[in-house]
């Protein structure tokens, strides 16, 4: 069942973004920024946690989960340290993704030439 939910949620996010791209003048950059903000917004009161519970990886891989992970890390430390915890914890959970993407990009661009 969780496979079906993962299919539906991930497919739905891609569908919505495709509709936005085709029907407005927004670029992919606008849409991804918008989705990150939506993901963070849904997690203010823990709605995105519920979605992750029911949809599994289908809710983890869209870019909305980037906002969810950012606010999750921030709120975890804010619970311990108060408002300053926001600054300490904001990249706690996303640092793995960002650093791996950076390191992979660096070494790949030393090896490969761009193809046009």
């Amino acid at each position, binding site marked *: 069942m969780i496979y079906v939910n*993962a299919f539906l949620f991930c497919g739905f996010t891609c569908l919505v973004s495709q509709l936005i791209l085709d029907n407005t003048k927004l670029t992919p950059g606008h849409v991804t920024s918008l989705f990150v903000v939506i993901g963070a917004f849904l997690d203010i009161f823990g709605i995105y946690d519920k979605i992750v519970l029911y949809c599994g990886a289908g809710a983890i891989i869209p870019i909305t989960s980037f906002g969810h992970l950012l606010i999750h890390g921030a709120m975890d430390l804010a619970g311990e340290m108060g408002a300053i915890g926001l600054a300490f914890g904001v990249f706690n959970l996303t640092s793995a993704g960002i650093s791996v993407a950076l390191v992979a990009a660096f070494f790949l661009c030393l090896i490969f030439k761009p193809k046009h």
Partner: protein
Amino acid sequence: MNNKEYQKFIETYTPKPKVFENALVSFLVGGALGSFSELLLQLYQLWFHLPRKESGVIVILTLIVIASVLTALGIFDVLVTKLKSALIIPITGFAHSITSAALEYRTEGLVLGIGANIFKLAGTVILYGVVSVYLFGLLRIIIIGG
């Protein structure tokens, strides 16, 4: 023919994007990617005996590495033109934007090229993510106290 008429004239000849077809393709491919990563998540939990949360992070890392390598090989750009937002909205799009920026500015040098431009496209995601997290986090602290 004034400017407005000319615009209308142009619009009748520019090809309209195939809205329905694009939407269907991105739904099916995006959904398949979601199911595939759920399968990956279950397998990682079985193989490495990690809790679900950490396995989720490793699934993200796997997709990032795959997308970066495909971008470097030039395959990802071909796939994006066919599959559209099914590959932009998952985390693969984030990895693609970083790797393609690095590849493109490689010729301008290590510091001024790669270093200065690597976040050119991905920076917007991080900027608005962090700004909104600060706002929403403060809101939540004020409303329910952390």
